[in-house]
């Protein structure tokens, strides 16, 4: 195609320079903070970070919410994807469009919508007070539940899209064949659907888990400082306490968690069909 290799490389150069200078280098410098001390290379930053009970609880909460959001998205996602795949042509496009639509709306707007629903004078509290279930509005915002709901709603479409495309590749008649051979619907799911869609689950799971870990706006608005996550903590470290070492440590932990999640999911997927 090219007269020589150099011409081909020249075309890749702008992208390479752009990524290296503007992304990789700053990130490397930032992350190297996480390993620096007065005496040179050190893991002291990590030791200090995990020594703090607050940091430990923020880390565990982030992990817990990430797992819960990804797990719930998988369960709801499988049900939704199975339904979508089995809809007739036109209805299928409509429902799938409804699933994708939220992705075209800013996460800020979508998160503020939850305030309308969960706030002191929101829809849910109006209903609770109106029905006499409680004399005064109860606190729904700034709880883990609020953050969980916000993140789930934010990232569920990614899981559904991954699972729908995975399910579309299941050969026709394979599920009826399993039924006729005596498989209950539970058997059909675990012995046919799950093994044939595991790639989709790994992709969807990684996207949702990583998304939940690294989302800033949703935990910031729905959790505030009462429900700190690693991402909101990171922001505090940088903007409030100017503690760049801790910020770098958190950033490294987030990256490590994302890679770990992908590895764990892949391991589960290839374990045994």
């Amino acid at each position, binding site marked *: 195609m090219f007269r020589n290799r150099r011409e081909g490389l020249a075309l890749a150069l702008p992208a390479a320079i752009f990524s290296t200078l503007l992304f990789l280098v700053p990130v490397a410098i930032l992350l190297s903070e996480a390993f620096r001390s007065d005496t040179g290379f050190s893991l002291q930053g990590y030791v200090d970070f995990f020594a703090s009970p607050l940091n430990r609880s923020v880390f565990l909460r982030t992990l817990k919410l990430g797992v819960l959001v990804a797990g719930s998205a998988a369960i709801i996602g499988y049900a939704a994807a199975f339904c979508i795949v089995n809809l007739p042509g036109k209805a299928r496009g409509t429902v799938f469009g409804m699933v994708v639509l939220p992705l075209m709306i800013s996460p800020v707007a979508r998160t503020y919508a939850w305030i309308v629903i969960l706030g002191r004078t929101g829809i849910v509290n109006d209903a609770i007070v109106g029905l006499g279930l409680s004399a005064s509005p109860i606190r729904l915002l700034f709880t883990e539940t609020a953050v969980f709901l916000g993140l789930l709603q934010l990232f569920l479409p990614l899981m559904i899209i991954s699972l729908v495309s995975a399910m579309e590749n299941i*050969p*026709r*008649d*394979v599920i*009826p*064949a*399993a*039924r*006729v*051979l*005596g*498989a*209950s619907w539970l*058997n059909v799911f675990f*012995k*046919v659907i799950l*093994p*044939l869609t595991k790639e989709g689950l790994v992709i969807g799971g990684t996207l949702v888990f990583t998304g939940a870990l690294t989302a800033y706006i949703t935990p910031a608005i729905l959790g505030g400082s009462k429900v700190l996550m690693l991402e909101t903590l990171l922001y505090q470290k940088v903007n409030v306490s100017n503690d760049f070492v801790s910020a770098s440590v958190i950033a490294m932990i987030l990256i490590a968690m994302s890679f770990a999640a992908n590895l764990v999911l892949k391991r589960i997927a290839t374990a045994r*069909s």
Partner: protein
Amino acid sequence: MSDTFVQLTDLTLTYGKNIAVPALNLSIREGELIALLGPSGCGKTTTMRAIAGLLAPASGSIHIDGRDVTRLAANKRGIGLVFQSYALFPHLNAFENVAFGLRLQKLPEAEIKSRTEQGMATVGLSGFEGRKPAEMSGGQQQRLALARSLVMRPKVLLLDEPLSNLDARLRLEMRTELQRVQKETGVTMVFVTHDQAEALALADRIVLMQQGKIEQLGTPAQLYAQPETAFAAEFMGFENIFKVAGDSVQNDHGSLPLGYRPDSAILAWRPDGVRVGQGPHQGRVTACSFAGGHREYVIDSALGPVKANADIALPEAQIGDSLSFDLPQATARPLRA
């Protein structure tokens, strides 16, 4: 009937608002090989899916071996179904495909192994245990799907267009294979096909269907020699079908006097039944093809194109030649309107 094994009573099947099969009644005997024959969209596959439990009937009932299974889920019917697409599990090897149903029954491992190996041997696939379906030929996949159903020892084995995806040579091979398996296992088989040659060759009885209704039911010999309607006759190779009016036959093109007065509404002739080279009628040859023992002519006559087979011993007529022919009473098949 005391020996009825599968009984469909007033079975009505619908897709949304469309009625695919209206009030079907059919009795199938134990050990019988039944063909559901008809053009695509005649309801034959729909009927089969209903027997398997994959489609809930709008009304009517299905009895198998004396038991009402109308409301029974597909996984509890004890029926085998070989899909047209084979529907093998792509993530499992051949052995695990065949063992799939046995494993669900939580049988002892030794029994699963022996029955699976026996099943694969029955269809001539011993040694292919470790292959994935994608690594097997169409014929092998077909036999694997058959083995997967057979090892379950189904009460009834349903086959959807079992030979349609195979090439001509494999088709003949699988035809004998299916007959052999059926004789060996004695399983009641219902297969769906649009190919009348396949139905005639394989089935004990043929159910000819059109628009969800049974057009005619009978042995291959009955259907072949004595079709009762124009639809059945056309399906069985009567290519010349004409309305009767008094002592002549007619269609949209025109009419021809017969010289005798038939007492049926419609008459039909196979190309073999039309006499060529002599007779009261004249036509012009518009097509001629050599077919081994005979020549196949299309003769343009007062009735439009008439299809006729002439013995190879007769002198060959060229396209454009005038040819005399006769529609003899002896080879005419009377049909009801």
